[in-house]
């Protein structure tokens, strides 16, 4: 994650640009553009969550809640008050950022992994609120008729148009995040990752940086939630349950948390697995996910994105043995 080459990001941008056109030509993968919209939405969350796990060394088991708050704030403000969707998206980001600060700050000041349990509890509470506050959220039935997005009279009303909108967001966030990592703040984060005590003694305000990363990751999840709501025009609580939070963890563990591409690879693979390739398992796919997470944690601690590095190291070690 230290540096991100111009070549890989250029190649990836090229891939995204031609993707809808190629998918449209091949009947077998025609629906892949739609799935790729979700991959983009999830990428927004995993980029932030990967930063939190890989750099701050903290784990959140409640990001589905921030994703859900983004979606519900957008949905409620647009359908009940008729406000401009972009403005609502901005309000959602502010609200989520403040809530994340309130939830994260106390537990991140403590040593250890209280954040995992605090976010788990928070996620379940928010899920219950989505279900119970029927007057606002529509309860388990959810909310429909959420308007689509438009900009200066241009409507993002087809899958292809929305695809480019979402991936536009992803590239902006990707480049912005890489810039953070390469700034002073990024250096502080890397120091925290290597040794919290050493970073502390060099004058890095460790809790402050951890809270910043946590709030940043929550804001990205909120943005993703708003984009999700305006894409499907319908939301209900089951999208934002505990299992989605765990799925996000699986994406990051599988892709690799120490490399920004890990977030993209993980989001892509898991989304295609759950939407396309695991249909055969139906609801037992949870066993597959558990197995993936366990195998990756034991054998691939750096995820798929760390695989080239691992192979290289193996190669070098073998050479030095000769």
């Amino acid at each position: 994650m230290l540096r991100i080459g111009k070549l890989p990001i250029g190649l990836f941008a090229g891939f995204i640009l031609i993707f809808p056109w190629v998918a449209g030509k091949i009947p077998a993968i025609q629906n892949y553009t739609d799935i790729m919209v979700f991959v983009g939405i999830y990428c927004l969350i995993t980029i932030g969550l990967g930063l939190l796990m890989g750099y701050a060394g903290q784990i959140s088991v409640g990001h589905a809640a921030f994703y859900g708050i983004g979606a519900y704030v957008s949905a409620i403000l647009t359908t009940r008050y008729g406000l401009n969707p972009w403005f609502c998206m901005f309000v959602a980001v502010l609200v989520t950022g403040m809530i994340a600060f309130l939830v994260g700050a106390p537990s991140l000041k403590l040593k250890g992994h209280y954040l995992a349990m605090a976010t788990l509890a928070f996620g379940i509470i928010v899920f219950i609120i989505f279900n119970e506050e029927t007057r606002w959220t529509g309860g388990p039935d959810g909310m429909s008729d959420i308007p689509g997005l438009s900009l200066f009279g241009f409507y993002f009303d087809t899958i292809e148009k929305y695809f480019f909108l979402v991936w536009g967001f992803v590239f902006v966030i990707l480049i912005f995040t890489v810039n953070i990592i390469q700034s002073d703040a990024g250096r502080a984060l890397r120091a925290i990752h290597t040794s919290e005590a050493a970073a502390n003694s060099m004058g890095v305000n460790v809790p402050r940086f951890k809270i910043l990363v946590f709030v940043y990751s929550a804001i990205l999840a909120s943005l993703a939630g708003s984009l999700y709501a305006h894409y499907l025009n319908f939301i209900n609580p089951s999208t934002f349950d505990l299992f989605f939070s765990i799925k996000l963890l699986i994406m990051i563990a599988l892709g690799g948390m120490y490399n920004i591409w890990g977030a993209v690879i993980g989001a892509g693979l898991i989304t295609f697995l759950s939407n396309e390739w695991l249909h055969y398992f139906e609801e037992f796919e949870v066993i597959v996910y558990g197995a993936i997470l366990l195998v990756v944690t034991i054998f691939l601690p750096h995820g798929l994105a760390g695989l080239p590095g691992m192979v290289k190291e193996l190669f070098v070690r073998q050479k030095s043995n000769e």
Partner: protein
Amino acid sequence: MSGQIFQYLVTGITVGSVYAMVAVGFNIIYNVTEIINFAQGEFVMLGGLIMVFLHVSLGLPLILAFPATVVLVTMVGVLLDRLAINPIRQPTVLSLIIATIAASILIKGTAMFIWGKDPFDLPAFSGRDPITLLGAVIQPQYFWVIGFLVLVVIVLTFFFDRTIIGKAMSACADNPDAASLVGINVKKMVLLSFALSAAIGAVAGITVTPISLMEYDRGAMLAIKGFGAAVLGGLGSFPGAVIGGLILGAIESLGAGLISSGYKDAFALIVLLFVLFFKPSGIFGNIEISRIKRF
């Protein structure tokens, strides 16, 4: 009205006894390894469902099915350590937590595969004729749940204070490096802590199933509430776990009865968040200890 409140309290203390047992399980593993075991609730779920299988489906008598269930769940605990915790080569707190999360969804998925999604009932140990006391209706099974909590506490106190293995485990909790210097096999103690806390989880699951039934996806909620009890009492403290569990159960029962039943599951979690925010050391914990611990 006072009868009703007494009713809520009795129910709350019974449910709280289950949370207390889960919290004790958290503490045993946390004290030895400093891992927060996210799969703790799955032991309770497995205890209930395996008991249903042995006692109801196979027709084994209670006196045989109970210990057999505890042994089987203990084996799951041993497998959890051997297959998920022990193989991690460079363990970090992060990877250990992720491993227990992975194990918990694996266990949950497997339980769904075996038992399906329906809840299962278990005959109460001594019938279901309720006793009326001070205007509250009390099921005999309540006494079994509370009684087993007391038994677990007595046995564990004896184990940690009087036996050499128990003392060795406590030594690992204080300082694993020093413990291994004096010849304690830390890895064995870790394994033992998982076995022990699985066994306690099984007892909780077996005793509560006749009251609240049991289904495959109950684990996560039990785990988070048990953790809430452990934090409320002070993470690592056994008396704290018991008192934390009972208080949490009472708050949940009173909240569901008097305020809103839709938010029943939220009360305990809100208490957990408040404790984390305002007094993370809990009632019996020591803030210094929670700072010194590696995580």
